[in-house]
């Protein structure tokens, strides 16, 4: 049984003081139901999550209490991807015909401050200032630049593109382009990454309505099909965030594993993909994730990005809605935002940030602490 996405909804990302995170989730859910042409009472199950804005099943208080199974999902940055994968399996198994996945969040300003105990780490790790996702990303790209010849200018170009794409996306947080020189010379946050090269915790909500593929056309003229949805966690030897030590021998990370499995499940390869959303919590992540997801060899990013291949009109458009850099990161909503954007692209409905060429296959990837990755492949 294949699975289709027949409805999508989003609450604009950024800061919305007048609405709670939950209300932003409900706003997105109502739009997704409306897009699918159905009512909340038609939904047979729901999965969802938020990291800082309460239990997703409290959406029932906003949308109506209908008695459906609603499961709260908490899986860091891969919360949305995890909800989606579970919903995909619930429909594929034949247990349900139609369901909703939702993700929303509302974070305080400033970098995340994770609790070492929640990850099985000693309190000393946080006390001494090592419990910082920003440090991990900086150290990973620092090593990667050293090994694969990526320049600081290329780091700046990733952020430059993100803000251009964000300026074309009415739901993005950062809606103004930022000059390349300003990005490169802005305040250093964690060497080699400057302020504009990092995304910030933000707010937003996304919801998707999924159903059995054979029933999709009764709801939606242009359904998009979920060809794969895969979640992987780290294996021993991969270099991950929040790791007081790591192995001397490095192995491929969960992104590589999830990507390979997703391509195999979908029966397609990286060259078939027309548009991609790759986790860009900072500029370096987008660069490294290009190779980890199989879109190029390690080091080829330098030439690809410098030549504009990853821009909207390029041969390999990436993060076409501005990504995390222009949308910020509401943890629960972020992964589903990527899928929302891919559905828009495949419907040809992305407006000013639509990629040309009538895309057919779209790819999304998230990475989260303490070493998990979710990948989905969509086809129209």
């Amino acid at each position, binding site marked *: 049984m294949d699975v289709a996405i027949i409805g999508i909804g989003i609450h604009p990302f950024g800061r919305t003081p007048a609405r709670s995170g939950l209300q932003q989730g409900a706003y997105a859910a109502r739009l997704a139901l409306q897009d699918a042409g159905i009512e909340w009472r038609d939904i047979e199950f729901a999965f969802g999550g938020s990291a800082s804005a309460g239990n997703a099943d409290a959406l029932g208080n906003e949308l109506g209490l209908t008695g459906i199974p609603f499961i709260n999902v908490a899986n860091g940055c891969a919360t949305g991807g995890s909800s989606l994968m579970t919903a995909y399996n619930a429909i594929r198994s034949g247990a349900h015909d139609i369901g909703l996945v939702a993700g929303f969040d509302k974070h305080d300003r400033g970098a995340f401050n994770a609790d070492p105990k929640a990850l099985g780490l000693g309190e*000393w790790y946080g*006390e*001494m200032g090592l419990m910082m996702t920003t440090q991990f990303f900086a150290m990973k790209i620092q090593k990667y630049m050293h090994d694969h010849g990526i320049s600081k200018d290329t780091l700046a170009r990733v952020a430059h593109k993100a803000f251009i794409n964000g300026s074309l996306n009415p739901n993005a947080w950062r809606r103004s382009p930022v000059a390349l020189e300003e990005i490169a010379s802005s305040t250093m946050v964690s060497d080699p990454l400057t302020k504009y090269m990092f995304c910030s915790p933000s707010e937003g909500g996304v919801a998707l309505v999924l159903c059995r593929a054979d029933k999709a056309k009764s709801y939606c003229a242009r359904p998009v099909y979920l060809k794969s949805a895969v979640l992987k966690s780290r294996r021993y030897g991969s270099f991950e965030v929040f790791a007081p030590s790591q192995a*001397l021998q490095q192995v491929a990370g969960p992104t590589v594993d999830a990507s390979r499995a997703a391509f195999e499940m979908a029966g397609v390869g990286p060259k078939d993909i027309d548009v991609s959303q790759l986790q860009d919590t900072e500029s370096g992540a987008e660069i490294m994730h290009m190779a980890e997801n199989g879109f190029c060899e390690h080091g080829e990013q330098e030439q690809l990005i410098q030549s504009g291949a990853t821009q909207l009109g390029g041969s390999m458009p990436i993060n076409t809605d501005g990504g995390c850099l222009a949308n910020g990161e509401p943890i629960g909503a972020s992964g589903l935002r990527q899928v929302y954007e891919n559905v828009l692209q495949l419907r040809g409905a992305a407006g000013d940030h639509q990629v040309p060429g009538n895309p057919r296959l779209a790819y999304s990837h998230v990475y989260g602490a303490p070493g998990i990755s979710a990948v989905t492949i969509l086809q129209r």
Partner: protein
Amino acid sequence: MSKRVPIAEGLFTWPAERPALLGSRCNNCGIASFPVAESCMACSGQDVTIEELPSRGTLWTWTIQQFMPKSPYNSGETPETFRPYGVGYLELPGGVRVEGRLTENDPEKLHIGMEMDVVFDTWRTDSNGDEIIGFFFQPSN
């Protein structure tokens, strides 16, 4: 009477004439990990031996933390007195790559592959006057 106490028990030998980080080595697959764990992340084995890790290694990667982290960061600093600090992974031969703070915070003086020593020094002073001891990586002379 103030004391010098380690930031966490079992992280390194203390008190000791020459303190050393403590790791656990799996007696099944030979993999070492830090801090000491009761089982092996690589092979799931539960037969491990605690050992002292080498005191000198090479810097595998690094960054500078330029802003003051929120709690649980607890250094006794204020936003006014905060000083950016280096963080890196030190590759200890035959052991593991251990993450820690660097004594150096000038990016011009740090490069991948440089030799560094594990040192033990006061991290902060507790409200009762005790010195809390942590571990740091310092460029070798």
